[in-house]
């Protein structure tokens, strides 16, 4: 048996460490550890609740927007504010474009190098590469001359001897299976996607002033005004600009992302039987078509809410937020009632208790506490969240477009639904979701345009903007399906200030450690059985961990330095 530590896990957001035992060429046990913590919940205490979104947004700059949205929904829920329809639709547009952006960047820049051998691309025949590309898609940046130029650029770069971010990569590793032509095509699309993401995300600059960390959310609505008669507001010209950019997103996903996944997957079908993990999936659902707060009104959401247990796609279980608890038995925190307790967010305590080795260290004591993440559980059961969970819940709920696309991908690859519960399934689900949501973004834009055409230009509900109109105390929660999964913010307001703030984050659900009962988290469970050709080169571990798209700055559960904080948030 060999014990290994992979730290840092790169090509993710934030600081993640995986320790694993490897025996007989595969992973026999794994531990997931978050190694960074800031304290933003503590910092939020005592602040103006209308500022909370701006602070919370800084939890993550990759999934920028997601914490801002969950935060304003939480405060609106607490104060009983319903934002105008225009604001809801603008929020949907920002969020939907964030999904497309995030998923494209994940696939091409964070995940692709797990499957694509950049050095092998140097052996590709540009003409054959052009044939391959033409056989899978009508994506326009193609042709023999184009691929020859990409190859030459790559050859010059490699010959220069300074490989920069590609140095020390696992090039030539036996787990790389793609032919040189597929590798060259992927390198070309890697570069194209760098250009794409820069242009596409201008949607956020138009609607929110800048990206990352756009600056437009308000408790009660959005700060970007709408007025067809003004050049300083969303007008017909702006809507046209947005449509053009959203269409580039749909084109890139349907012409490059989806065909690339379908072209690469057949070389890695063994990964449809690896990395399945828990088999339990949760989605909060999102994208309201009306002005309602989706946290408390899950009807009329474009993506549905629910859970699936034991891979049973035939049964989608309704979600009950009161069944969410968090454990700290293996987290660097302590509970007053003892560290084996599981506490619901509204009864939660946060008291840091670092018991790990003094840095510098080689290995963590994984029998004891080993992560800055808590271990969230639903009904005492670990669940996976993210694109695969959302697509499975939508599939099980009979979401027409999702069913159609999932079946189409399965048919194309010649595999059954069981292939979805895997590392490859997670990666395919993210691509399918990108297509579904890129399409939906244009529907939302149509709805916004129609609403404006009908004379509605309201973007903010200001009735309770002034804190003097607030009750002495209030509490509420905000739910959002972020690109990486189910996110919830919980706020208590007292005398106009934040009294308590709690965040339960997608990557905490997925990357969290064992609970008091020893149940593994989603990463830990998915890594069991992962093949490893060479324990010194953790390429296969990266594949499965990256299939979740980790976001550790988000996940690090943020706690009260003084401890003993009793959270009192009621689910309304």
């Amino acid at each position: 048996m060999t014990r290994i530590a992979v730290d840092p896990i790169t090509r993710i957001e934030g600081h993640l460490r995986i320790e694993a035992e490897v025996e007989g060429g595969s992973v026999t046990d794994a531990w997931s550890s978050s190694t960074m913590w800031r304290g933003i919940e503590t910092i939020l205490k005592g602040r103006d609740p209308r500022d909370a979104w701006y602070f919370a947004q800084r939890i993550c700059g990759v999934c920028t927007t997601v914490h801002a949205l969950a935060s304003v929904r939480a405060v609106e829920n607490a104060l009983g504010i319903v934002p105008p329809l225009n604001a809801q639709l603008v929020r949907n547009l920002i969020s939907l474009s964030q999904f497309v952006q995030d998923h494209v960047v994940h696939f091409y820049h964070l995940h692709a190098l797990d499957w694509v051998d950049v050095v092998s691309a140097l052996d590709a025949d540009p003409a054959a590469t052009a044939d391959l590309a033409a056989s899978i898609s009508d994506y326009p940046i193609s042709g023999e001359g184009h691929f020859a130029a990409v190859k030459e650029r790559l050859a010059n770069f490699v010959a220069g001897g300074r490989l920069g971010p590609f140095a020390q990569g696992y090039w030539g590793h036996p787990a790389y299976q793609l032919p040189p032509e597929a590798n060259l095509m992927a390198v070309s699309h890697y570069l194209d996607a760098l250009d794409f993401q820069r242009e596409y995300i201008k949607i956020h600059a138009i609607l929110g002033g800048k990206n990352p960390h756009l600056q437009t959310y308000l408790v009660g609505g959005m700060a970007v005004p709408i007025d067809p008669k003004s050049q300083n507001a969303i007008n017909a010209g702006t809507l046209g600009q947005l449509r053009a950019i959203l269409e580039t997103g749909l084109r890139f996903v349907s012409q490059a992302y989806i065909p690339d996944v379908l072209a690469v997957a057949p070389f890695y079908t063994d990964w449809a039987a690896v990395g399945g993990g828990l088999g339990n999936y949760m989605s909060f659902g999102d994208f309201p078509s009306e002005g309602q707060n989706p946290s408390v009104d899950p009807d009329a959401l474009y993506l549905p809410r629910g859970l699936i247990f034991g891979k049973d796609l035939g049964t989608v279980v309704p979600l009950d937020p009161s069944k969410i608890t968090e454990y700290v038995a293996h987290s660097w925190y302590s509970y007053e009632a003892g560290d084996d307790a599981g506490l619901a967010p509204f009864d939660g305590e946060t008291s840091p208790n670092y018991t790990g080795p003094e840095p510098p260290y080689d290995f963590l004591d994984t029998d004891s506490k080993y992560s800055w993440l808590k271990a969230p559980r639903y009904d005492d059961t670990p669940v996976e969240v993210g694109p695969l969970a959302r697509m499975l819940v939508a599939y099980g709920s009979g979401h027409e477009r999702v069913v159609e696309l999932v079946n189409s991908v399965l048919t194309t690859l010649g595999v059954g639904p069981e292939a979805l519960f895997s590392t490859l399934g997670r990666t395919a689900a993210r691509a399918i979701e990108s297509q579904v949501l890129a399409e939906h973004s244009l529907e939302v834009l149509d709805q916004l345009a129609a609403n404006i055409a009908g004379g509605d230009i309201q973007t903010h509900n200001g009735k309770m903007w002034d804190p003097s109109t607030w009750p002495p105390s209030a509490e509420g929660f905000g739910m959002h399906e972020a690109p990486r999964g189910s996110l919830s913010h919980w706020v208590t307001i007292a005398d106009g200030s934040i009294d308590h703030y709690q965040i339960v984050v997608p990557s905490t659900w997925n990357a969290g450690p064992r609970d008091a009962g020893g149940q593994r988290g989603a990463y830990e469970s998915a890594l069991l059985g992962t093949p490893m050709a060479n324990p010194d080169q953790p390429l296969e571990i990266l594949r499965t961990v990256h299939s979740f798209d980790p976001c550790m700055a988000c996940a690090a559960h943020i706690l009260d330095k003084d401890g003993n904080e009793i959270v009192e948030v009621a689910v309304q």
Partner: protein
Amino acid sequence: MPAATIARETLGEKLGARGITRRTFLAFSAGLTATLALPSIFSERIARALEASDKPTLIWLEFQDCAGNTESFLRAHDPGVAEIVLDLLSVDYHETIMAAAGHQAEAAKEAAIEGGGHIVVVEGSVPTADGGVYCTIAGKTALQHLEEAAAGAAAIINTGTCSSFGGIPAASPNPTGARGVPDVVSGVPIVNLPGCPMNVDNLLAVVVHYLTFGALPPTDGQGRPLFAYGQRIHDNCERRAHFDAGQFALEWGDEGHRKGWCLYKLGCKGPSTFHNCPSIRWNDGTSWPIGAGHGCVGCSEADFWDTMSPFYERLPKPPGFGVTTNADQIGLAIVGATAVGFGAHGVAKVIQHKNRPSDEAPEADMEHSEGGDER
């Protein structure tokens, strides 16, 4: 061609080999010259320096961060991030984009540091409480990594407010003892590019300045380059005329808000904030926060999380201080820069109003006659 020869191939040759014309390249140099606020005569010199450069080594360290500055880096345009990473610099360590993980990643960093003369970019604050356990990478603390990378470095560029000044982790009550890089490292030239996040145009301009002139650009007292932080947002704001005319948005979505009037009364901190957002804007010049209807929150100022909040009020109310004391004890220091623009009378009047038991109506705080700029 032998590798050693190609390794010395310059950027100019590389771009030429890729069919980028000298004309395009000069246009790029001219753009950078403008960002750097240099006279256009420098454009040719910048172009020459870039053409002769041999990919300086860059190490990008992430500590208590959100990767927002990395994301901003990915939004680079003219040149794009692909040109920067493949042609302009040798980015030997950057956790978010690099292929290698674990000890292979650390080996790449050690190799890059070994030669010395590298540029270190830092994103995120450095936790100093409790032995640094609040941020470890490969089993070592952020501070240990920073000290190793700083040894022999040519310069440190802090991207964002966190690495520059401590940022949000250092906001009250600073649970992890988070500090900015300048507080914990010395002996290396340091430049701060605060902002939440930093604007990639400014990062690129600093790198180009370094390549062209062999030194970091001149800075203000907070280590911020004067080309990017030398002027107040308020003084370059496209809505300034509305301020001078007394035209203010008073409620979100009201007529003034929709018409693009001044956001001062909705909490805009532009009058207290030094940054070049109004001129270079964001995302390839697409827009910027005030342009999209939300006030500035002062994100390029040290401790803005405490001193500029609440963001929707016109004077700061940091946690730990009462409303009535903050204007006297903190407000003057915060609006000190503002005072230059508004005149002592205006500031005194604002503070006076804030000290009253019941706050005055918004109109009383800042009459437009006070908006004169040292007239």
